[in-house]
């Protein structure tokens, strides 16, 4: 009998059932594909790591180098170090690499080096995660560049540097565990040993060394780093721990997966709210039948089973279909991973783990249904059978009289007063419109923020037109001095400020000394936004990046003291401020020039520049790029775009997805809500028509009410996306070094485009719903 009742109910409420089904299916598709993606990301990362065997500690160094000393150090610390290997990079400037006939890689912000495979670990892999074995005359190009310059296997690139000139044919994509991510500023091209030797012989590139250590199981990375520094071994570049590479590799996929899980959760909430609305409307409609059933002696459990069975059937069907469809959806979102981490997505574990989604959704729906159905317990048989009499005896205060309406048309007023009269009914719609707006505007805000030049402030950089980086060559110190001389005489430059980053020893709370990269210079020229406090302005002052100031870093607050070893003596500096920085693993510091340069371990020089009005940035960039071959000249906008390129691309998909999902939700829920509202109001609509109101006038009433709910929903949703969204994104980004993200608002998108799109979709749905709900013969309703 129950099955028959379920079947009848499904047929009777087709639209409602289909809507709830669509929501649950969509929630399952998203959640299952996100879980699938997270699981295969973890699996892919682990396989990638297994094949690539990345170093646990990598020291970057340019300049004088003695391998014997490194070997000695390795022997000394055998208890920690399993293997040591040094990779010699031949750095080639982007402008020296030609793609096709005219294009070069000059615009890239990445350091480009040509290498051969290591012998023991830190292997660079091909697209199948096999170690690359490049033949003579061929080159394996980093995936980042393949994407950036649309390079294909079989294309050629030509390296022209000094006397050296050679054309290479691209034979493979290079998947590089350590330098895959756009967030890592170097990229390695793999060539054959004989080509490499020839390049070396002709001194085509600047040499740089990656002094890499693979540790024993249980080896202490921090201890090795400290010992390395104390031994005074070569380290004029950053020292990087292996886990940072892992984080960089996984970050963009993880962010996208988390956003999708969040959207899926919202969909579950919406499905639950729809079920609640359906239940309340059905129970209201069936209240007499419930009374009859109770009077007949059917148990509450039995009555609830009738209502529950339907949604159990719907949830199971939606769960199965959603789960199966997630196999297709999963590939839409993992393009980045398939390219950068693992192409092979086989493995049953992912499918098994993705099953969590439909099971979770089913349990949530059933638990929620049970909760809503508690209402049935409260209805007594007598109450149910005499519900109309109970209704009559209720005394209510009359509000919103028509006579008080001074400004609005009758239909607009009727629509608006209906919200006041039946707010409980509109509440669901209100919540859903807030959620829809949130889903649209949050990704739009994130996309705009990542795409904005203002984002540089989260990268520890003040606002500026361009910057010149001098890194890792013997000539950089000389170039740095010459460059400043030239700036003094260049009228096109409005202002500039030089910054020097060197590695210092800093004392931690437990008394141990660790490396810290500190940038010195005048930070008042290009002011940076500070989370707390201010930039170091006087002698003895330092400011720390958020990650450095955090508990797992130096654990310092503004006003605390930091002990730094500079120039052979200890100096105590006062922390003046904390800023956000997601570069260099989030751990950076800025100090007043008086700290002095740590000559032995200068890492890089940077000059920030603002050009005079009317000066063409591109021309100026080209000039300095050509004049200083060791320099990297970047437009600040391009710099952030190239660094965050992958995340921006993925956010683009999320933005489009978010808008589509929000519109589908808004249309479906509005249609579902109006169907129920119109069914509930059928007799009232017929009365209005009988006294002479047209269908259009009645539609205006529903339009005015619903659009007002939408309008308020949009305002609250947009505010929530702007403020709550900022909070959520800041929480998510805090592990990367930015805990207070301020969204860049593109006003016309937030307050015009998104609302107009939603208003148009909802308005059209209302018109269609009102039209569909009307029967030609009025008497059928009036007399029923």
């Amino acid at each position, binding site marked *: 009998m129950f099955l028959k009742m379920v079947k009848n109910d499904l047929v009777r409420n087709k639209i409602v059932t289909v809507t709830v089904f669509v929501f649950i299916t969509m929630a399952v598709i998203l959640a299952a594909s996100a879980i699938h993606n997270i699981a295969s990301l973890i699996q892919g990362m682990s396989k990638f790591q297994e094949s690539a065997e990345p170093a646990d500690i990598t020291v970057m160094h340019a300049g004088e180098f003695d391998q014997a000393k490194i070997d000695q150090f390795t022997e000394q610390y055998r208890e920690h170090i399993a293997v040591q290997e040094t990779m010699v990079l031949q750095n080639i400037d982007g402008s020296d690499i030609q793609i096709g006939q005219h294009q070069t890689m000059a615009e890239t912000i990445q350091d480009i080096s040509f290498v051969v495979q290591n012998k023991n670990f830190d292997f660079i892999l091909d697209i199948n995660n096999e170690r690359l074995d490049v033949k003579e005359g061929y080159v394996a190009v980093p995936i980042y560049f393949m994407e950036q310059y649309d390079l294909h296997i079989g294309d050629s690139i030509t390296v022209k540097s000094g006397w050296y000139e050679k054309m290479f044919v691209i034979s493979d994509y290079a998947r590089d565990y350590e330098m895959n991510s756009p967030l890592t500023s170097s990229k390695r091209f793999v060539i054959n040993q004989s080509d490499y030797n020839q390049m070396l012989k002709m001194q085509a590139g600047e040499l740089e060394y990656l002094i890499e250590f693979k540790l024993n199981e249980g080896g202490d990375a921090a201890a090795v780093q400290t010992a390395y520094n104390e031994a005074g071994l070569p380290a004029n570049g950053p020292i990087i721990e292996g886990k940072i590479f892992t984080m960089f590799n996984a970050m963009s996929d993880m962010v996208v997966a988390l956003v999708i899980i969040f959207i899926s959760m919202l969909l579950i909430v919406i499905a639950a709210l729809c079920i609640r609305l359906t239940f309340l409307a059905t129970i209201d409609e069936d209240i007499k039948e419930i009374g009859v059933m109770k009077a007949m002696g059917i148990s509450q459990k039995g009555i609830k089973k009738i209502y529950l069975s339907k949604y159990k059937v719907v949830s199971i069907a939606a769960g199965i279909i959603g789960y199966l469809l997630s196999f297709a959806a999963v590939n839409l979102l993992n393009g980045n991973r398939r390219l950068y981490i693992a192409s092979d997505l086989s493995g049953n574990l992912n499918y098994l783990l993705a099953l969590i989604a439909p099971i979770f959704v089913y349990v949530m729906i059933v638990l929620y249904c049970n909760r809503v159905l508690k209402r049935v317990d409260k209805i007594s048989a007598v109450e149910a059978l005499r519900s109309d009499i109970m*209704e009559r005896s*209720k005394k209510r205060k*009359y509000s919103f009289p028509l006579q008080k309406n001074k400004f609005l048309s009758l239909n607009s007023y009727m629509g608006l007063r209906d919200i006041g009269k039946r707010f409980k009914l509109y509440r669901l719609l209100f919540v859903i419109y807030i959620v829809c707006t949130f889903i649209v505007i949050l990704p739009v805000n994130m996309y705009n923020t990542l795409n904005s030049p203002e984002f540089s402030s989260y990268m520890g950089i003040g606002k500026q037109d361009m910057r010149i980086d001098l890194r890792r060559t013997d000539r950089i110190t000389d170039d740095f001095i010459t460059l400043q001389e030239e700036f003094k005489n260049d009228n096109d430059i409005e202002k500039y400020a030089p910054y020097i980053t060197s590695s210092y020893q800093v004392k931690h709370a437990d008394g141990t000394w660790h490396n810290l990269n500190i940038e010195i210079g005048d930070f008042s020229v290009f002011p940076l936004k500070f989370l707390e406090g201010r930039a170091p302005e006087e002698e003895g002052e330092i400011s720390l990046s958020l990650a450095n100031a955090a508990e797992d870093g130096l654990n310092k607050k503004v006003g605390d003291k930091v002990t730094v070893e500079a120039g052979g003596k200890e100096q105590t500096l006062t922390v003046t401020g904390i800023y956000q920085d997601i570069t260099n693993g989030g751990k950076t510091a800025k100090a007043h020039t008086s700290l002095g340069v740590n000559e032995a371990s200068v890492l890089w020089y940077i000059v920030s520049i603002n050009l005079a009005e009317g000066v063409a940035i591109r021309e100026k960039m080209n000039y300095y790029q050509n004049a200083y071959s060791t320099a990297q000249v970047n437009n600040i906008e391009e710099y952030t775009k190239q660094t965050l390129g992958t995340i921006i691309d993925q956010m683009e998909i999320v933005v489009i997805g978010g808008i589509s999902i929000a519109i589908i939700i808004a249309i479906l829920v509005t249609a579902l809500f109006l169907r129920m509202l119109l069914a509930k109001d059928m007799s009232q609509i*017929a009365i209005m028509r*009988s*006294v*002479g109101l047209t269908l*259009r006038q009645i539609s205006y009433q529903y339009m005015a009410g619903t659009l007002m709910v939408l309008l308020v929903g949009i305002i609250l949703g947009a505010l929530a996306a702007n403020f709550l969204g900022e909070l959520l994104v800041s929480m998510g980004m805090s592990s990367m070094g930015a805990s207070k993200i301020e969204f860049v608002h593109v006003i016309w998108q937030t307050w015009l485009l998104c609302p107009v799109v939603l208003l148009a979709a909802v308005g059209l749905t209302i018109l269609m719903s009102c039209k569909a709900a009307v029967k030609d013969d009025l008497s059928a309703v*009036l*007399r029923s």
Partner: protein
Amino acid sequence: MTNIIEASSMTKRVALGKNTELSILRDINLKVKKGEFLSVMGPSGSGKSTLLYNISGMDRMTSGSVKYQGREIGSLKEEDLAKIRLGTMGFIFQDINLLKNLSLIDNIMFPALAAADANKHTISQKAKQLMKMTGIEKIADHTSTQGSGGQLQRVGICRALINNPDIIFGDEPTGALDSKATEEIMSILAEINKTGTTVMLVTHDVKVAAKTERILFMIDGKIVSQKKMRKYDARQDDRKEREESIMKWLMENGL
């Protein structure tokens, strides 16, 4: 006197299943004069109410023609029909059919506000005047769940009158009322008719029909007979005779 309604060969059929149809009205030919007070009687299911809804354009007839004030209502669009209902027709139902979320006075004002022919103050004054005329001015601010059947039916009448209609249709307006309330409602309708408004009622009640000047009798969707009477005048005290003559006529027609 000119005809306000002229129906010829009007039919109404409804689908009962995929291939089955039921004829509710068959070959209806009817003329209603302007200012006439007439009633429709017949057994349940004879098509009385359907006749009312179809000639008023509230329902769509299946075939035939109905001219209302010279306009063929079968060819009018929904919008035009609504306009005609709003401006020239008034309806009174057995179930009263008030808008739940409005007070009684707002229910009365509602059609006038929708027509927007006058300002709010004038409309409000007129509604109050009508309520006073029907003796319900004290419950103006009550809601539609607060009031007796008779009181609420008077609200229905006031609502029907607010736009000065040319015709009032009543679908068993006294069907749910006691005899005292029925008497009062019929007196009000008679007064309205005296002002020149056409009144057409569907009723089972001989006492109600006795107050009208023409009675149509329907069986199986057809008007099978009609009885004309002289205009009712309370002063003449011939109510009993009128009722008995109607009873006799009904029996002659097989009721």
